[in-house]
């Protein structure tokens, strides 16, 4: 017997070692359920003639009805209506772009900056993060901005350290004048606050051109890679990408502060210096590309986690620095206890932390 209950196309679910979760991607809600109900959801998804009989064997009938009611009340599922057929959505992911985003780290050496920008443009990288680690003076900063404005990117964010040489009006002016620079983040600020760049246009609807984020924290290379509930993604496109790819590294190409081409600037392995190697060659390198395919199902601990489809990843800072399939170091969640804890005070992580210079 078919029960005609259909899961919403906007809902995904996932089992974990201790519990399951239903994810409403559009309304941004998580519903925790027992894993036995994950089996029920799988049967709903299959929607075969034997589904209902199988469900009754797994969960007592009154509880099953209560679960159906819960799904329908929260509009996670609905009873099919109409002459057509509701179709379970395909979760495959494919986009026409090879490169999704890039990072350039700059400390005191700017010599490779222009070369890097032109390499990014050549491989049609549209989104870029520029991290400026040292105190720049105003002329240096303006020069970096003038140069990037000669290129065509779709989105650029600049991370920099607060200093007295670059006045705030200058930061604002960059967002006003450089079309693709929409977010500037200033580390080492007095307060944490986000300021939208909005011009007062009187009787018109006000639009934000971008944001300046002031952050108390300092900008450190090994400060990257923190994973929490706040880095979960709700975008269906990202979730589909996560299911088959590494959520952080897929489509990423980076240049570290010495001009070395890497998957991510925090990683040790480099694929040559930008002075002599092209992005095209690196993108054709199997070792470089291989990391893009490490999805959460391949990562220890993460593969048992109920959050694995919506969580981001980090391959630079690992619980076991010698094992590329090890869990991200800076994640405080333990799927075996279903509890979040502060990762940085976990004694088991001390050894790895010292390898990365975090203690």
């Amino acid at each position, binding site marked *: 017997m078919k029960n005609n209950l259909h899961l919403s196309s906007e809902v995904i679910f996932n089992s974990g070692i201790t519990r399951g979760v239903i994810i409403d991607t559009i309304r941004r809600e998580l519903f925790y359920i027992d894993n036995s109900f994950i089996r029920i959801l799988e049967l709903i998804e299959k929607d075969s003639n034997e589904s209902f009989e199988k469900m009754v064997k797994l969960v007592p009938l009154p509880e099953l009805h209560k679960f159906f009611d819960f799904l329908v009340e929260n509009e996670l599922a609905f009873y099919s209506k109409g002459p057509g057929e509701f179709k379970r959505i395909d979760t495959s992911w494919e986009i026409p772009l090879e490169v999704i985003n890039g990072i350039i780290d700059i400390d005191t050496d700017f010599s490779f900056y222009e070369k890097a920008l032109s390499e990014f443009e050549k491989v049609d990288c549209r989104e870029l993060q520029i991290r400026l680690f040292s105190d720049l003076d105003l002329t240096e900063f303006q020069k970096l901005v003038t140069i990037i404005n000669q290129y065509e990117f779709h989105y650029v964010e600049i991370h920099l350290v607060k200093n007295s040489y670059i006045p705030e009006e200058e930061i604002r002016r960059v967002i006003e004048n450089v079309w693709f620079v929409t977010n500037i983040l200033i580390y080492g600020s007095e307060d944490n606050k986000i300021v939208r760049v909005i011009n007062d246009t009187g009787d018109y609807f006000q*639009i934000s051109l971008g944001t300046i984020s002031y952050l108390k924290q300092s900008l450190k290379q090994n400060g990257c890679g923190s994973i929490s509930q706040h880095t979960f993604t709700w975008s269906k496109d990202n979730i589909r990408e996560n299911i088959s790819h590494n959520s952080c590294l897929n489509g990423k190409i980076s240049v570290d502060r010495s001009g070395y081409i890497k998957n991510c600037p925090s990683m040790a392995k480099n694929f040559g210096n930008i002075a002599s190697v092209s992005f095209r060659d690196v993108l054709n390198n199997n070792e470089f590309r291989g990391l893009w395919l490490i999805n959460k199902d391949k990562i220890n601990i993460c593969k048992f986690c109920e959050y694995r489809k919506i969580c981001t990843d980090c391959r630079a800072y690992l619980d076991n620095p010698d094992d590329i399939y090890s869990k991200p170091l800076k994640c405080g969640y333990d799927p075996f206890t279903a509890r979040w804890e502060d990762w940085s005070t976990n004694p088991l992580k001390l050894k790895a932390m010292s390898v990365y210079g975090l203690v």
Partner: protein
Amino acid sequence: MEKLTLEEKKLDELGMLPINHSRIYSNLVTDINEENKLIRYSSKYNTDLLRSGKPRKIISKTINYSLFDEE
């Protein structure tokens, strides 16, 4: 986009207008000069592009994302 506001007219007040003009929704538009700052013609792609305030996905995780929860 800004919330739509409804302007309702009694059918009597419509004058010569058709009935479907009895309920007209409106919202404030943006200043064209500001709006133009969001749009750029790209000769590379031969299209107008809209400025994006967010990346397709998080590019790195150097910041404490709990600050951005409201976004």
